[in-house]
């Protein structure tokens, strides 16, 4: 699996990371939730990480400075690693013989369960960093809480990922403060970038029947309980950046049900092109 759609999977790869050597049996009896719900959850988290990695990876060589190319490539790589573990787990639970590559590169648009926030196009660097702030702050709270999940595989992925995401958030925070509390031009663009991504933040905390069941089984963290921390943490950054909180009642949604925005089809076309044009191609 690759971020830029230009590199097929290396052949002869070792077993993808799990928390133990043997795959967890589908329908994880310890937690009492159905394997369908668990597959959905692993896909939601995995698709968020995968699509965010794809968006970030495609910016490399177009960023304002060399250090930024390296930083964004590293963040994308961490997210891709998280996506690989989560999609591999989803494939094992599903039991239809699909692995990370089939799930990432052969599903159609309506089968992707990522939030719309991660698929938004990077119109401006301020959009990229504003979005990364909202997303990494969410991931940090989520992964830390997920470390206590009754699902051992998810808890293992989360414990690893939480430490990485703290660096992503730190990076986004520095840029949002630097641009927001910068020149008149950078302040205006950062405020505009934030306004563009802000409404899509609500979907991160959306609770449907699947999420409710997973929360009750203590597999997924209580999203409602995570939201105040997310809001106050971002609020602190905005205050330091001299940026105004965004007032909006528009809360787009649908990603968790496979409904996506216009740019998502183009993103998938680029990400999946090689695999679809040359099925079975090996590196």
């Amino acid at each position, binding site marked *: 699996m690759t971020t830029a759609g230009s590199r097929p999977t*290396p052949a*002869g*790869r*070792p*077993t*993808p*990371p*799990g*928390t*133990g*050597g043997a795959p967890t049996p589908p329908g994880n009896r310890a937690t009492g939730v159905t394997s369908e719900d668990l597959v959905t959850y692993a896909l939601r988290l995995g698709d968020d990480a995968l699509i965010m990695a794809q968006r970030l990876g495609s910016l490399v060589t177009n960023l304002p400075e060399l*250090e930024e190319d*390296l*930083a964004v*490539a*590293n*963040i994308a*790589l*961490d*997210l*891709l*690693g*998280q996506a*690989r*573990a989560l999609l591999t787990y989803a494939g094992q639970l599903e039991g239809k013989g699909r692995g990370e590559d089939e799930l990432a590169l052969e599903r159609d648009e309506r089968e992707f369960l990522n939030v719309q926030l991660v698929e938004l196009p990077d119109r401006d660097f301020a959009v990229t960093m504003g979005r990364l702030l909202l997303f990494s*702050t969410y991931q*940090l709270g989520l992964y*830390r809480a997920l470390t206590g999940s009754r699902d*051992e595989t998810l*808890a*293992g*992925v989360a*414990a*690893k*990922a*939480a*430490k*990485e995401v*703290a*660096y992503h*958030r*730190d*990076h986004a*925070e520095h840029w949002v403060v630097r641009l927001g509390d910068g020149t008149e031009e950078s302040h205006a663009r950062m405020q505009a970038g934030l306004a563009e991504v802000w409404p899509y933040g609500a979907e991160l905390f959306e609770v449907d029947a699947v999420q409710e069941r997973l929360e009750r089984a203590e597999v997924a963290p209580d999203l409602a309980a995570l939201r105040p921390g997310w809001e106050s*943490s971002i609020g602190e950054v905005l205050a330091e950046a001299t940026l105004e909180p965004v007032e909006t009642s528009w809360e787009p949604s649908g990603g968790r049900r496979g409904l996506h925005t216009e740019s998502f089809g183009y993103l998938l076309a680029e990400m999946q092109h090689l695999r679809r044009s040359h099925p079975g191609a090996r590196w």
Partner: protein
Amino acid sequence: MVSDLEEARAAAAAVTDPEVPVLTIEDLGVLRGVEEAGDGRVVVTITPTYSGCPAMEVIARQVEEAVRAAGFAAVEVRTVLSPPWTTDWLTEAGRRKLAEAGIAPPARTSRSGTGTRVPVALGLRCPRCGSTSTRIVSRFGATACKAVHACRACGEPFEEFKAL
């Protein structure tokens, strides 16, 4: 059988990190165990430094080859994520080798990890001239595990193996 397993362990432990070749996977704390399965296979367990670390695939392959070359026909390399790797697992030898290679060893991590800010190493020592008058250039470097710093005293840039 015990001494045999020690040989397998020694072979696996000597594999180096392709991205930081001064370190063996034992120095790094990436090698988590070498055991014998009931059916006579040698099972080597490794853990990634970062979720997306591309070196893991190379390391897994080299471990398998090394243990095979030491005379073990059946080798399995398992990658586990839990417990998550931390730079605190770097051995003292590993920290010394990093410094000798001009890479500042990581600060010890605090295990609290509840705030949203990452720890900043204050007064990181320049591995070239020893000055603590250094500044961070970027928290992300040429590999996932490194940050880039610059020394105000000698003017040289240097890498830090960043705390995780």
